């Protein structure tokens, strides 16, 4: 059963306990200065940002059909059956196509390292494999971030907005976006007002390039036949012209 995270921004109090727990889980430094940074970075794989009096938490969406995994030329990114999208730094060559392609602009890079890696949340793959909760869900004191089975959390999210229609914007973000993700958002206001991208379609992004990539065998085979054929025709024509030229010259000489 794939796992998911439900983040209910109406419950979030902005205490950033998730940030601290995440930093600890990755062995990253965490202090007041880092806590004040609003955006994701190579040393901050989840970030709680403030929008007026509301909070919004960013982390990797661990998409059902991840764009990053589809664009990675070396297969360093993999979608696991458990839900998390994992990253193998030993394969990564640093082309940063995952960063360019990610519709949520999640992957970050160790820009100042001589041997840099891409960094992103992997929904605590190791912890969840061992049956534990993600570090952020375990740390959240108010239940704004909860972790569980995908189906159950999707149902829970829908139940909340149906039960309290006056408190919630009537949509669960993350269920259909780019074919579905593993992180669901609930909000009191439209999602663009808490910093989420709302111009994404329901089609999984890997389709956009696969439509073209799947044509390659056809292009190569048809191209070979076509170019080979053209070569054969044009050179045949040249051969004939040469032969006829020789014959004509021969005839001319005989005539003399």
């Amino acid at each position, binding site marked *: 059963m794939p796992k998911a995270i439900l983040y209910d921004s109406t419950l979030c109090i902005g205490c950033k306990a998730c940030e601290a727990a995440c930093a600890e889980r990755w062995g990253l430094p965490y202090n007041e200065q880092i806590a004040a940074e609003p*955006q*994701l*970075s*190579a040393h901050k794989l989840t970030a709680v940002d403030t929008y007026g009096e509301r909070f919004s938490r960013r982390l990797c969406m661990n998409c059902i059909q991840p*764009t990053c995994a*589809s*664009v*990675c*030329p*070396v*297969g*360093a990114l993999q979608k696991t059956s458990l839900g998390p999208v994992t990253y193998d730094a030993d*394969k*990564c*060559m*640093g*082309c*940063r*196509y995952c*960063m*360019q*392609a990610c*519709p949520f*602009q999640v*992957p*970050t*890079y*160790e*820009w*100042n*390292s*001589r*041997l*840099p*890696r891409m960094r992103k949340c992997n929904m605590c793959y190791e912890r969840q494999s061992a049956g534990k909760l993600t570090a952020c869900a375990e740390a959240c004191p108010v239940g704004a971030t909860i972790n569980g089975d995908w189906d159950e959390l999707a149902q829970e999210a829908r139940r909340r907005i149906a039960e309290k229609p006056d408190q919630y914007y009537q949509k669960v973000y993350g269920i259909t976006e780019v074919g579905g993700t593993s992180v669901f958002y609930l909000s009191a206001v439209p999602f663009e007002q808490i910093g989420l*991208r709302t*111009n*994404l*379609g329901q089609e999984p*992004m*890997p389709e*956009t*390039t*696969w*439509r*073209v*990539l799947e044509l*390659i065998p056809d*292009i*190569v085979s048809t*191209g*070979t036949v076509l*170019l*080979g054929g*053209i*070569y054969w025709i*044009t*050179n045949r*024509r*040249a051969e004939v012209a040469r032969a006829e030229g020789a014959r004509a010259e021969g005839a001319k000489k005989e005539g003399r």
Partner: protein
Amino acid sequence: MTSKLPKITVWRVIFAAILACGLYATYVRVMYGLGGATNLSDKFPWGLWIAFDVMCGVGLAAGGFTLVAMVHIFNIEKYKPILRPAILTAFLGYMLVVVGLLYDLGRPDRLWHPLVMWNPHSVMFEVAWCVTLYTTVLFLEFLPVVFEKFGLHKPLEWIHQISVPLMILGVLLSTLHQSSLGSLFLIVPEKLYPLWYSPILPLLFFISSIAVGLAMTIFESWHSSRAFGRALELPLLMSMARVLAVVLSVYLWIRLLDLSHRHAFELLKQNRIETWLFLLEIALMAVPMVLLYQARIRRQPGALYACAVMVVFGFIANRVNVGTTGLEAGSGTHYFPKWTEVAITLSIVAVGFATYRMIAQYFPIFEVEEHHNANAGPEKNEKEADSVAVT
């Protein structure tokens, strides 16, 4: 000759200055990483090195496959005298792309990874294989020049035996590679500005690469005729300019259709930087197209050269727009290259020019292969005369 001497010195000084900056920038890149050497950021991970060094480098090398297809597959023999310079340009172009990649990759020591660790769903995987295979093909296509220079007849024969499949392979790989650079951006529909994002980006990239391949051939013929004091192959370039005008027309027409089908013309009413960059890019393609349809323009080497330069710049503008400027608004950030990025790009280009010059000086680039040359001479001249008359 004496009047030319100071000019050459000036160029040499500029060349040395560029290289010195490039070397220092390389030091910064190695010691302080991408963060120290570039203005790239998490929200803007690709910059000048991808948009110019890689995307333009590959495109400007397109003369190689275009001329190979014209001369050897379509058997239009009159273009043979400019085939070798085009192959040399393409080969150097690809070598420089590889050098550019070594700077841009976070882990250049793992350049070979895609050859071993496969992911056929990735356009970047296709790009990596195309770069590798086509650079090899270009090397093999260039080898006869080296063999001829050193009088190695046996290997020359071997190469000739595989030359036809090799050339077909080269054209196919180029088709894939040129278009795949457009496919790379199919994955960012929500980021790339709609004047550039199109589902037919791969097709547009392919057609524009043919145009710039022809323009680059005219460009380099003009320069090498000046540098080496050779006569300009004007009749050839004139007939090539006709082809260029048609390719540009096809490209602009498809671009127009695409924009109208996607209802993107509305966007031109907005006074935004994207609108102006788009208009600049289109003008740099449309103006030479109109000019090249006129015999008067094609007949003048200077005007012909100016048209070729416009097409080259129009092409560069397009690639830079798709690769950087068109992505800024959608990425929610600004990007302008750091001086180190510019210095390295300029150095790569400068080294390319210098290497071309050196190889052209010491290797038989501007002659047709000996055994063809002997009997093809007068016939060729006739053909050239014909094409002058026609144009």
